[in-house]
């Protein structure tokens, strides 16, 4: 078990190096001079430009820039943004907000998606099953920004149940609507997957055996059907974590959530290499950690799986 974790952590190192390099290169290759762009319409004095270039190592060749950046990261220095704020500070401000949004969204996804999928699977071919299929197909066909605008218009502007945008400090109640919108992106898959899994489990011999022991339906459904059906669903949730991150960039923009997505978007527009790369690196890191945790959780859910070596 410990050996397995160590191996997975070691595997993460080349993944991190590869992703940072790719991101760094792509941002470097973006057209336009970031320093000039910083001044907008105005033409900056040449000495100032020169100074800024030197300060942010923009005058050096790409590979040197990258190596300096890597070296700094190993020393725990993520660099400074163009506005003079340390990147580490921006990370510390924005990540908790996005994590809260992601957690809330995953919660809605699990309760809603798994709940609807379970009922659909148990009442296969019924009215509920058919309606759930239609609703989930609607969600799957709509791009997330459409869902976001519609939700904002209906629930925030017309009905006034929520605030249209997220306020300072991103309190939980303001995050409910963006989290719901974020959850719709994967809702259909979770419903379909749970449904298929429940139908398959219900046909298993051990479910009939459980009934033959005299267990009531109320016990068989959660203990013998749902529990076994969750294994593939949980695996999917991990893979889907990436979708959640991408969705967060769009959703955070629309609802003005002061989180990672909005910050990364703005940094890309401004060509702020250190900020973009630092953020993406942390996102990749979180993705890897989440996947490792899910793989470990998988062993808890299914006792047949044991990680040898």
């Amino acid at each position: 078990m410990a050996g397995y974790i160590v191996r997975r952590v070691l595997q993460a190192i080349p993944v991190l190096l590869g992703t940072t390099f790719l991101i760094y290169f792509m941002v470097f290759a973006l057209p336009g001079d970031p320093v000039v762009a910083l001044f907008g319409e105005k033409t900056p004095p040449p000495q100032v430009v020169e100074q800024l270039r030197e300060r942010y190592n923009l005058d050096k060749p790409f590979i040197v820039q990258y190596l300096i950046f890597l070296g700094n990261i190993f020393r725990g220095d993520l660099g400074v943004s163009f506005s003079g704020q340390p990147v580490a500070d921006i990370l510390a401000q924005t990540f908790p907000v996005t994590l809260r949004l992601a957690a809330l969204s995953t919660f809605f996804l699990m309760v809603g998606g798994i709940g609807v999928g379970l009922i659909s699977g148990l009442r296969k071919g019924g009215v509920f099953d058919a309606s759930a299929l239609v609703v989930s197909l609607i969600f799957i066909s709509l791009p997330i920004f459409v869902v976001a605008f519609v939700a904002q218009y209906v629930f925030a502007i017309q009905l006034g149940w929520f605030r249209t945008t997220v306020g300072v400090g991103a309190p939980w109640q303001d995050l409910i609507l963006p989290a719901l919108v974020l959850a719709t992106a994967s809702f259909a898959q979770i419903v379909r997957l749970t449904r298929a899994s429940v139908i398959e489990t219900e046909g298993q011999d051990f479910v009939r055996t459980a009934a033959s022991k005299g267990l009531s339906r109320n016990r068989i459904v959660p203990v013998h059907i749902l529990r076994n059906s969750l294994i593939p669903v949980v695996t999917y949730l991990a893979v889907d974590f990436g979708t959640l991150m991408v969705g967060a960039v769009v959703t955070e923009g629309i609802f003005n959530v002061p989180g990672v997505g909005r910050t990364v978007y703005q940094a890309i527009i401004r060509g702020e290499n250190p900020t973009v790369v630092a953020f993406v690196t942390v996102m990749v890191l979180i993705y890897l950690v989440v996947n490792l945790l899910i793989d470990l959780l998988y062993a808890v859910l299914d006792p047949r799986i044991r990680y040898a070596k």
Partner: protein
Amino acid sequence: MTEIVNGTNMQQRTAVDVGERPLLEIKDLEVGFTTQDGVVKAVDGVNITLYRGQSLAIVGESGSGKSTTAHAIINLLPGTGHISGGQILLDGQDLTKASKHDMEAIRGRKIGFVPQDPMSNLNPVWSIGFQVEEAIKANGIATGRKEVKKRAIEVLKQAGLQDADRRLKQFPHQFSGGMRQRVLIGMGLAADPQLLIADEPTSALDVTVQRVILDHLESLTRELGTTLLFITHDLGLAAERAEQLVVMYKGKVVESGPSVEILQNPQHPYTQRLVAAAPSLASRRIQASGSIAAAESSMAEDAAHAAGDTIDLIATAEARAEVLEAAASAPPAIVVEHLTKVFKIRGSGEFTAVDQVSFQIPKGTTMALVGESGSGKSTVAKMLLKLEDTTSGKIVVGGIDLASVTGKELFHLRSRMQPVFQDPYGSLNPLRNIGNTIAEPLHTHKVGTNASRRERVFELLEQVSLPKSLVSRYPNELSGGQRQRIAIARALALKPEIVVLDEAVSALDVLVQAQILRLLADLQAELGLTYLFITHDLAVVRVIADHVCVMQNGRIVEAATTDEVFDNPREQYTRDLLAAIPGAGIELGA
């Protein structure tokens, strides 16, 4: 209200004790399955009466409705199944009219159920202890964590798991098949039910394990006074384990009565065929006709006559004896010398699956490789077919050393050596029709033209006694027996010299099994084929093989002619295997 009901129940119970009312009475039971073409009746007017303390076996081939009857009793019919008529009276209470809630109370507490396949009937994600304890809690047998746990250990020990307290926290995958079946038996008996329904409880297990489990089940139910309803496809097993027999065929009861009576004097033609075809019984009969007194052997011949010419195993056996004499002088088709296979296991070193195995198969004869699962017999077959590399040793097929052949030569050699595998459902591609399936080896080896291949397919279908009209059908439209014939036809397409049959008849019903064995014997006589027959079932060996090698833990522990092995087994292990053949101890003569 409930008290009044209880009162009547009490009266009924007294009546039963006197012996007037049966514990279980099934009257004109009908079970239907709703399909696209309307309702299909799986059980059609079945009557069964079972008295307290008795044991009764329902026998029949798959599709006869025996398991459906069992599932109807506990109201757990699969899919669209429903009871469409008749009554099921348990202690006078009609179960077909019982509410969902009533049935939950009856299951487990009044009727225990032991399912067929120990591999799929335990939930893999919960520990053994959890699954036994929930049965105890649901039936209100014990309350409080300690009491429930105590009872769980008691139940498992009673079912033959001696180290139950230690293994409570283990999961099903850490148990062997036999151990899991013990757990299931323990669960079925956890609430001391009056009636225990055992649905083919051991058909997935090795023959020696099967016997131990059944012995235990028998003594346990006798001890507890449990009434036993036993369901099986094996007539020998049924006769050995139950006092009463009910023979089912296509949803109807064709014959019922005391077991010995039915075996010795079957009335219905179907039962007669079943008795004649059961390899466990037939093997005994071949022996009987040779060595036991004339009066008894004439009895056996009568039984064989009753079977008509559908299956005449004695004649098959005699015809083979002549072939055998001729074969002794011919060069061997297969020579295996010091064959060894070592598998590397991650973490725990090496495992020797096959250990210094040597044997020869004379051309035109059948050699049976016998052993329990895990004995290495299938690994030998795979190495012989060159589907698995050898660790050391030598295999010579038709004078060619397998180790030296590669590429084209191997390709050519393969056409002379064809396999038939155990599972007729898994070995046919569901997306290819029968004609294409049989013709595939001809395409692969570029034999003949399209027209001549078509001719060959028809010829093969005729050889395996199947109608030509099957060429355009798909595997899912055929029965298990038909599929296995297709697999045999495919194996014969290239006119091979050697056919390796890996448990080729193990998954089939007795009647189909007998047909296939007969077919194999006929084809051997006709085409001079050499068979390597791999099986765990010694009863089948008796009617098909000339030579037997008994394998245990990767080694051949006994090798001799079939008669020698059966009449005079040298090794204790072989004797155990022989003794475990169900029904072997039943004398067919009076």
